[in-house]
């Protein structure tokens, strides 16, 4: 009898997802689910889905879920967590949700040191609505609302949210990871686990920014989009840890 060494995490439901081929959401969902399993918190986890491609995340995770208005997931998660302080509460948000319409909510959740974990999927574009410019779209990136490329003089520079939140003492763990190869996936999972552990230990706010592809709206194949991400996103959005959980609040 062969020993079963790989399977679907319990925290992930056995359903097909709506995500496009080559999109990283599926991988990121899986890593979050694996961490929920490993920490044995499936029974007290409450996820908050946002607006964007991951709006339907509540159909995929095998945990209680609340679907939040656009950008408001950190506020909704705050309400959930304050009712269930022993709950493990995470938000799952895209770049438009978190770094444009929901900037105030994420900044203040981090500033309060809210004991929640945010999974921030940065693919530099609005996916759900069909490829519009995101706050994280790169300079010269062509989108449906920057058809001549994002211009710095009118749209400004893309927001590096992790670095921005790193100025806040309430944010105890902040890391930017990618899932474009197995080595990076392993690092991403370790970061997500650490982020959940920071929450469970009651230390404060934690967030993992995951660089992701959007082949459909970037207009590329899955393989091309992986290369584009490495060449264009990673230099501007360096992978790394911006708050390690070791810092002592001043």
């Amino acid at each position, binding site marked *: 009898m062969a020993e079963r060494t790989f399977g679907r995490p319990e925290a992930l439901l056995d359903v097909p997802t709506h995500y496009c081929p080559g999109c990283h959401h599926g991988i990121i969902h899986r890593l979050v689910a694996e961490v929920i399993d490993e920490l044995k918190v*499936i*029974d*007290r*986890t*409450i996820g*908050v889905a946002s607006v964007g491609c991951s*709006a*339907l995340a*509540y159909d995929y*995770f*095998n*945990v*209680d*879920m*609340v*679907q*939040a*208005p656009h950008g*408001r997931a950190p*506020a*909704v*998660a*705050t*309400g*959930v*967590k*304050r*009712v*269930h302080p022993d*709950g*493990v509460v995470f938000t799952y948000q895209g770049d438009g949700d978190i770094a444009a319409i929901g900037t*105030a*909510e994420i*900044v*203040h959740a981090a500033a309060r040191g809210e004991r929640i974990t945010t999974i921030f999927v940065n693919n530099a574009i609005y996916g759900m609505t069909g490829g519009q410019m995101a706050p994280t779209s790169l300079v010269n990136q062509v989108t449906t609302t920057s058809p001549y490329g994002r211009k710095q003089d009118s749209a400004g520079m893309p927001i590096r949210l992790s670095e921005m939140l790193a100025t806040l003492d309430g944010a105890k763990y902040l890391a930017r990871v990618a899932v474009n190869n197995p080595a990076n996936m392993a690092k991403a999972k370790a970061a997500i686990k650490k982020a959940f552990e920071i929450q469970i230990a009651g230390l404060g706010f934690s967030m993992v920014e995951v660089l992701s592809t959007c082949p459909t709206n970037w207009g590329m194949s899955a393989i091309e989009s992986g290369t584009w991400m490495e060449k264009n996103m990673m230099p501007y959005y360096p992978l790394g840890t911006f708050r390690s959980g070791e810092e002592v609040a001043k």
Partner: protein
Amino acid sequence: MSEKILMKGNEAIGEAAVVAGCRHYFGYPITPQSELIEYMAKRLPQVDGVFLQAESEVAAINMVYGAASAGCRVMTSSSSPGISLKQEGISYIAGSQLPCVIVNVQRGGPGLGSIQPGQADYFQATKGGGHGDYRNIVLAPNSVQEMADITIEAFDLADKWRNAVMILGDGALGQMMEPVEFKESSSKPVEKSWAATGRRGRAKPNIVNSLYLQPDLMEKHNHVLQEKYAKIQAEETRWEALNTEDAEVIVVAYGITSRIAMTAINKARANGVKVGLFRPISLWPFPSQPLAELAKTAKAFVVFEMSAGQMVEDVRLAVNGAKPVSFHGRTGGMLPTPKELYEKIISVANGEGGK
């Protein structure tokens, strides 16, 4: 507590919420409701509750959305411009059928408006305010005691119907002091098997959601909501009728305006005018039926509001052309005087003013 104490309306709502078992409050400061947020900041830690001052009204209502999703009794409060900001969350709360209590201590508008009392948010409160087909239960007290009683009732109604209940006050009611008594409440939070608490042994996850991408399912969900609203209309309509039995003129007014109207009505009665007060307490569901009944015996209606004429539309719909309905309003934070209301009553009683 059983003895009467002197309190501001805003504070009475706060204490009543605690009596009703509310232990979670999320708000943002705004005049003229700041005594309420300040009361909760002081009071909730004394009962191991959670007080959180949010970064905005938008965040506050979304915290309410989260806390209500998680199954607790929760309240937020604001005043007119802040309530406008909460409309997004209120629509989601309606779509997800979440119980909560929202207090609007109205001020003059539109825009940043004034900080004095107003009643110009009637349309916003009773006709939707946010997007989509939905209704909030809207209750309008007219005294500090009633603010306390209605707040306790509001939590029960919210839980009973899985619906937002809005308490529509105004700057005068919020700021004025009157004796108030807090009776022991039999109010108990109901079992919320739908709440997102973490599965805690439950086989299937609970999902709190207002998204239905398939239009047929969205319509089905709307039918569920509309059936609920129809039941609320049938069961939860509240009003007060004073001196209406023999009245030829019916004054319709709610909130602080009804108090001022009573002074004018009493004076008119003393001068032999057969006038009575019909006071809607639930603004939604609106007491259309009892008003239609009064239209059979009364000769004329006159509506007093601190707006340019909002509730008057519901009165006209209820009376349905059977009798003339006049209107007198003040706006911008101005309170009507008993004298001007008296004069309007006399003019209506004399058959002037008509439709």
